[in-house]
């Protein structure tokens, strides 16, 4: 009896120990890979037009057309995004100052034409869905690598191309609350450092989001994601999906600094 009980406790420990969060150690190699992903060349700036399609489980679609501008200011990245469609969100603008310095919180502002006023967004909003989509406000900014720990699970092949499978875990509960997920597994394509698939375990029991890149292309020498999707599942049942399609992109344009200001949000495109 004692030996049988001990055997099954041993089995349980075998299952538990490798996946116990407390035992998850940060691995330098995995961190280096994610640092490379973050530092991947994406031009000094970009002008993009995107179509965001929100699809519920019955197949009903809501379409958002977005025009966005990104520019590097030293190590920081500023981005401004304007909604063009549908009519009731037209000229809604979203401005982000994404700081490399992890001690500085990102600044984000939202302009709603109906309010005629720019308002700040608080940090906690990052876990909330962006305009009803499956992407969050946190997804719209670069993650702060220091808030997470990483480990390399293994190398895999997707569509004939080698990937690293990296597991990411928030450092503490505060980061979980900030970003809204407890664990991420991401497949990083080795030849161009694009994350082609990712699975986000959310801070809600049984809920996960799945990110898939459907199409990429090299534009002006820069590997670019042209079509991707984010699917939210609860207990493996699809709840909602967002398809993000890039309809046009131009890198390294002449973008004035004052394009990335709250004044510009009010003036619109």
């Amino acid at each position, binding site marked *: *009896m004692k030996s*049988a*009980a001990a055997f*099954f*406790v041993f*089995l*349980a420990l075998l*299952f*538990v120990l490798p*996946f116990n969060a407390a035992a998850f150690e940060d691995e330098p190699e995995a961190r280096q890979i994610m640092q490379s992903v973050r530092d991947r060349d994406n031009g000094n700036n970009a002008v993009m*037009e995107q179509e965001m399609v929100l*699809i519920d*489980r019955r*197949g009903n*679609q809501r*379409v958002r*057309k977005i025009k966005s501008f990104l520019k590097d200011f030293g190590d920081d990245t500023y981005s401004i995004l304007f909604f063009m*469609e*549908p*009519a*009731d969100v*037209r000229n809604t603008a979203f401005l982000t100052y994404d700081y490399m310095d992890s001690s*500085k*919180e990102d*600044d984000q*502002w939202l302009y709603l034409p*109906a*309010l*005629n*006023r720019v*308002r*700040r*967004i*608080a*940090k*906690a909003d990052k*876990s*909330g*869905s962006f*305009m*009803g*989509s499956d992407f969050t406000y946190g997804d719209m900014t670069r993650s702060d690598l220091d808030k997470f720990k990483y480990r390399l699970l293994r190398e895999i092949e997707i*569509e004939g191309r080698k990937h690293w*499978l990296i*597991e990411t875990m928030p450092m503490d509960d505060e980061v979980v609350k900030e970003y809204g997920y407890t664990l991420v*597994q991401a497949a990083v394509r080795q030849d161009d450092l694009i994350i082609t*698939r990712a*699975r986000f375990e959310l801070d809600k029991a049984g809920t*996960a989001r*799945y990110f*898939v890149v459907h199409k990429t292309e090299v534009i002006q020498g820069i590997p670019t994601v042209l079509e991707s999707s984010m699917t939210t*599942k609860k207990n493996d049942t*699809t709840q909602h*999906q967002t*398809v993000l*399609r890039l309809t046009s992109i131009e890198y390294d344009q002449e973008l004035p600094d004052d394009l990335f*200001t*709250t*004044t510009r949000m009010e*003036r619109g495109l």
Partner: protein
Amino acid sequence: MKAAKAFVFKIAIFLCLAIAAPFAPAMGFDFFEDSQAPPVLAETRQSQEDSANSIRSRFSLFGDVSLSTAFDWDHDEPEPGKKNFNSLSRQRLKLYLGADTQLSQAWKIRLSGLFWYDFVFDILGKEDYEKSFVDSMKDQTELWETWIQGPLLPGLEMRFGRQIVVWGTSETLRVTDVINPVDNREPGMTDIEDIRLPLLMTRLDYTLGRWSFTSLFVHEMRPDKLPAWGSPYYPFEQALPYDNKPSMSLDNLQWGFAANGRLTGLDVALYLANYFDHVPYFTVTGSISGLQDLVDYVLTLEPPASLEDFDPSRIVLPPSVAFSSRIERRYSKLTMMGAAATFTKGSWILKGEAAHTEGHRFFLIQDREKERFDWLLGVEYMGFSKTTLCLEGFWTHYPSFETLMEYTPEAPKQSQAILTGRITRDFLRDKLRIIAVGLAAGDWGNDGWFFRTQADYDWADGIAVTLGVTIYGSGNLDLYKALDKNDRVFAQVKYSF
């Protein structure tokens, strides 16, 4: 013994499964297999680039059309022959239509108008309503935001035309938000962003790093739109007197200046403005005819030895002397210095505003201008998912208050406190929004209060349905005594294009 072993075996298996189950998803990497990626649920439209798009992008037509209805239920039984307001109170068809034209890369023109017609007077008959009320609420045709904007110099942007400028941080109250008047004909029925009225002005913006500087030259004076005589919201016993609005002239030019800093974690703003108050004060104006004859007559009188010896019945004015006077509405020219700040920390947003205005005038003491201090402190919390909580406290104070001011029709109080609260929550992936907003004036709302809750639902892209109810509470202030009994339910369907 065997039964005990079997029991332990089952418990151990159960424990293995229970402990391992939460980690099961982490163990399965099926998603990363080629064939296991979730498919796209439906075909999506492909955007087509064609030559027509380039033309369309220079010109765009936009707007919305809505049908709104409201029903009142709390009014007192009217006197015989008077209108019973416990009935349909609104059946309004509204059209907002606008057009933007991109003249060049940098220059743009906007033209927009607002039109509505309320069928309620046709449905219920106009006879029982006061004419002034019907005229005020039956229909409206108004030139809305109409302007031309573009760069005058590198970094210096101009916008000239009818426009709305919003200052300050508050969602509900106005401390430094003084530039545009508001439509207050149905107080509490909608948020403040829906009731600001555009003004003709020249706006200049200059950006320098994280700071932007705005100059305003306001060429038009518009008062607030107030409930008309006969409206269930009207607070006075008589119709308002003649409205002596300032004319458009260089002498009456209004101006404003703002400096906005968007710093890391902090927004600050400084304001300075000279403008006409949007709410009138009352004044008596008069004239004397035959003034010289009056002066000559007075010079013939012998001054009495004492006040007791004065007999007014012995005064006989020359027939050419006549007095005329009237009460009219006028508008104080105010100067405002103010500041606002918004500070974010975690899930919290802290905000504050302060303003000092001088130049306030009141009935009976219009030769003496009064100054006033206004403060606002607010906090927003966004720590709950898809929910925003907002609480704002507002205080106003007249340092050199005179007792006589309490008896003026403007009825200011030396100090006034107002508390507002708002809860906003989104559901169904931002398709449904529930809003609850309340305002209480005075200590514990004893000066008056109102509460509104509504649900806004996106039926489809561009189509929204709203249902709501507004409840008013009376108090010491005449304004809220008038608002009381106007409780109503309302609904709206709106199509945006």
